[in-house]
C-alpha cells in the first residue's frame, strides 16, 4: 500500500471522471443522482475512517455531526443567509461542538467512548426531532440552492445533475488528497502513533490528547461538510439523518472498506449507499449493514489493527 501512495487516489479520480461518460453512453444519467448522494455519505464515512482507523477512537455519533452541519445550513439559508456563509457556519458549529464534546469524552476508553458518542448522537436526534423550530419530525424542506460561483450551484434537478456529480466528487477527491497528505505529515504520524500505543506515543512526546481531539474535529468537519452540501442537493433535511442506525452504517462502511484504508472506505461507502438508495436491498436495507458489521468482525480476527487493505479481500473494485 505504501508503494505509491498516490496511485489509488489517481485511479479513483480517473474512475470518477469516466463514470459520467459511461452513464451518458448507456443513457443511465439518472445514476448520477444516487452517485452524488453516495459521495456525500462516503465523505462522512471518510472522516470516521481517520478517527477510527488511524487514531483508534471509536465514535458512534458521526451521524450527529452530519445533522449539525445539515440543520445549520438549512435553518440559516431558510432565514435568508447567503449559503456560502451558512456553509461556513455549519462547519464551524460542528467543529465547535466536536471540541466541546471531544475534550471530556475522548478521555474515555473502549466501550465507554462508544457509549458516550452513541449518547451524543441520540441527543442530537431527539433535539432534531423534538424542537419545532427545527421542523420537528418533518424536518426542513425548501432549502434553497447553494450558489458557489456564477451558475455553478449545488441543487437537485435534472439540469444540474452532471455539475453536481462533478462538484461532489471533486470535494470528495480533495478530502481524500488532504487526508492522505495529512498522514504523511508530522501531525499525521503523531496520529498514527496513537493507534499503536498511547503510552508509547506519549512517551515519545506526542500530545495524545490534542491529536485525538484533532482527529475527532476533522471527522466532525467532514461529516458537517457532507451534511450541509447534501441538504442543498436534496433541498431538505430530516431528523432521520441523525439516527443511530446511520452512525452504525458509517461504522460498517469503515469496517468493510478497511479501517486504515481511505480509498477502500470511500469506494465501499459509494457502492453500498448507491445500492441502498436505489432500493436494491429492498426491505433488508438495515439488515445488510448489520450483516456486514458482523461478517467483518468475524472475518477480521486481528482486531482493529488491519495491515492489509481489507477492500481487496471483499472484492471491491479499486
Amino acid at each position: 500500500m505504501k508503494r505509491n501512495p498516490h496511485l489509488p487516489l489517481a485511479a479513483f479520480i480517473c474512475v470518477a471522471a469516466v463514470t459520467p461518460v459511461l452513464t451518458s453512453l448507456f443513457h443511465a444519467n439518472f445514476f448520477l443522482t444516487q452517485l452524488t448522494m453516495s459521495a456525500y455519505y462516503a465523505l462522512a464515512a471518510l472522516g470516521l475512517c481517520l478517527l477510527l482507523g488511524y487514531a483508534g477512537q471509536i465514535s458512534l455519533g458521526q451521524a450527529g455531526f452530519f445533522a449539525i452541519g445539515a440543520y445549520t445550513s438549512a435553518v440559516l439559508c431558510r432565514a435568508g443567509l447567503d449559503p456560502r456563509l451558512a456553509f461556513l457556519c455549519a462547519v464551524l458549529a460542528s467543529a465547535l461542538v466536536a471540541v466541546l464534546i471531544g475534550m471530556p469524552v475522548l478521555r474515555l476508553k473502549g466501550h465507554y467512548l462508544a457509549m458516550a458518542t452513541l449518547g451524543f448522537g441520540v441527543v442530537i436526534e431527539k433535539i432534531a426531532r423534538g424542537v419545532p423550530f427545527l421542523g420537528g419530525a418533518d424536518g426542513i424542506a425548501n432549502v434553497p440552492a447553494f450558489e458557489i460561483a456564477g451558475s455553478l450551484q449545488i441543487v437537485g434537478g435534472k439540469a444540474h445533475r452532471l455539475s453536481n456529480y462533478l462538484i461532489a466528487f471533486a470535494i470528495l477527491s480533495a478530502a481524500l488528497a488532504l487526508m492522505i497528505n495529512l498522514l504523511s505529515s508530522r501531525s499525521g504520524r503523531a496520529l498514527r502513533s496513537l493507534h499503536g500505543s498511547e503510552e508509547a506515543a506519549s512517551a515519545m512526546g506526542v500530545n495524545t490528547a490534542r491529536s485525538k481531539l484533532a482527529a475527532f474535529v476533522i471527522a466532525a468537519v467532514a461529516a458537517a461538510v457532507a451534511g450541509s452540501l447534501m441538504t442543498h442537493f436534496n433541498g431538505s433535511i430530516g431528523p432521520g439523518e441523525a439516527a443511530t442506525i446511520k452512525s452504525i452504517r458509517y461504522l460498517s462502511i469503515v469496517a468493510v472498506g478497511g479501517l486504515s484504508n481511505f480509498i477502500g472506505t470511500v469506494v465501499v461507502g459509494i457502492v453500498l449507499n448507491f445500492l441502498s438508495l436505489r432500493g436494491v436491498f429492498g426491505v433488508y436495507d438495515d439488515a445488510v449493514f448489520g450483516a456486514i458489521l458482523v461478517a467483518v468482525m468475524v472475518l477480521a480476527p486481528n482486531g482493529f489493527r488491519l495491515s492489509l487493505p481489507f477492500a481487496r479481500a471483499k472484492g471491491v473494485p479499486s
Partner: protein
Amino acid sequence: MSMFRFSVSRALRGAVILAVMAVSTNAFAAPIKIGAIFAVTGPAAYLGAPEEKTANLFVDNLNKAGGINGDKVVLIVKDSAGSAERALSFAKQLIDENEVVAIIGPTTSGESMAIKDFCNASKVPLISCAAAEAIVEPPLPFVFKTPQKDSYVAKWAFQTMKDSGVKKLAVVASNTGFGSGGKAQLEKYAGEYGIKIVLSESYDPSATDLSSLLTKVKSSGADALINWSIEPAQSIIAKNMKQINLAIPLYQSHGFGNIKYVEAAGAAAEGIIFPCGRLLVADLLADSDPQKKLLQKYNSDYRAAYSEDASTFGGHAYDAILILTKAIEQAKSSDPEKIASAIASIRGLPGTAGVFNFSASDHNGLGMDSISMLTVKNGKFALYGKK
C-alpha cells in the same frame, strides 16, 4: 478471422431486430407504469405496510378486470422505510428512470414535503397518503393528498366535546409529523368552541409507558384528554389512564382507525371517542350511503387476501390509486399533465375516506362530511350516538 467477423455482424443484426421487435411489441401493449413509495418497514410501518398491501391488491384486481382503458397497470413499489432522503432518491428514480406516469404515496408528511417540489417541477402527479395540510396548501398543480384535513378532524372532535360540556382539555400528541400537525390544529381551533387547553405536550413515539405524563394530565384538572398519534401509544394511553385511575373521557384522532389498537387496549378501549372515516363501520351505514358498497368490498377483499382487518391507513392508499385510475380513464391518456388536470376535475367520487370533490384550489377533495364520530362498544367500532 473473417468468419468470426461475419458471425459477429450477424449476431448484431439479430440483436437489433429483436430489440426493434421488443420495442414495438411494447408500443402495442404499453403498460401503464405507476410508482409507489411507501414506508413498508421502519417506524411508520403501521401505515406503510397496509398501504402497500392495499395498493398491490387494487392493482391485481384492476388488471384481472382488464386494466385501465384496456392497458395493464404495472405498480412499482419502493420501500422508503420512512426516510425522507430515500423517498427523494426513489422519486427521482421512478420519474427519471422508470418514467412512471404518477406516484402514489409517500406515507409520512416529512417524506411528502421532501419530494413534492421535485414531482411538481418534473410535472408528474403525486398523490400523497400523508396527513399534513402543508402538502396541498398552497396547492401545486401536480400535488394531491387523500387523507382528510386535520383541521376538519379537530373540529369534529371539538364539536362533540362542546356538546358534552367539556371546558378544559388536555392535549397529548406523539412527536411525529402526524402528531405535531394535529396538535397545531387543536391549539388553533380550541378557542372557537369555548374550550381551554390546559396542557399540551408531545411525547416520544416509541414510549412504552406514559403514566407519568398522564399524571401530569391528572394534576392539570382537565375534563377530557385528546391524544393525537398513529402509534401503539394510543392503546398504551388508554390502558395507563385506567391504571392510574384518570377517569376522564379519552378522545383519539383518526389515527385510531385500526382494530388492532382496540384489541391492544382491551377493556380500556371501551368508550373511546374519535372522528374518522366510515370504513370501520361500513356495515352499520344506511344502504343509500354512497360509500357503503365500496367500503364493504374493500373490507372483505382485504380480509380475504391478508387475513387481517382493513384499516383507514390502507384506505388512504386505496383512495390514491382509485383517484389515479379514474383520472387516467377520464383523460383517456397516460400523459402525466393530462392526468393531473383530470384529477383536479374529479367530482363526486366515493372512496374509503369520503366522497372526493377536487378543484383547482382543493387538492384534497374531502369535506367535513367525510368524517363521522366513532366510538368503541364491546370491543368493536360503532357510530357515536350522541349527535
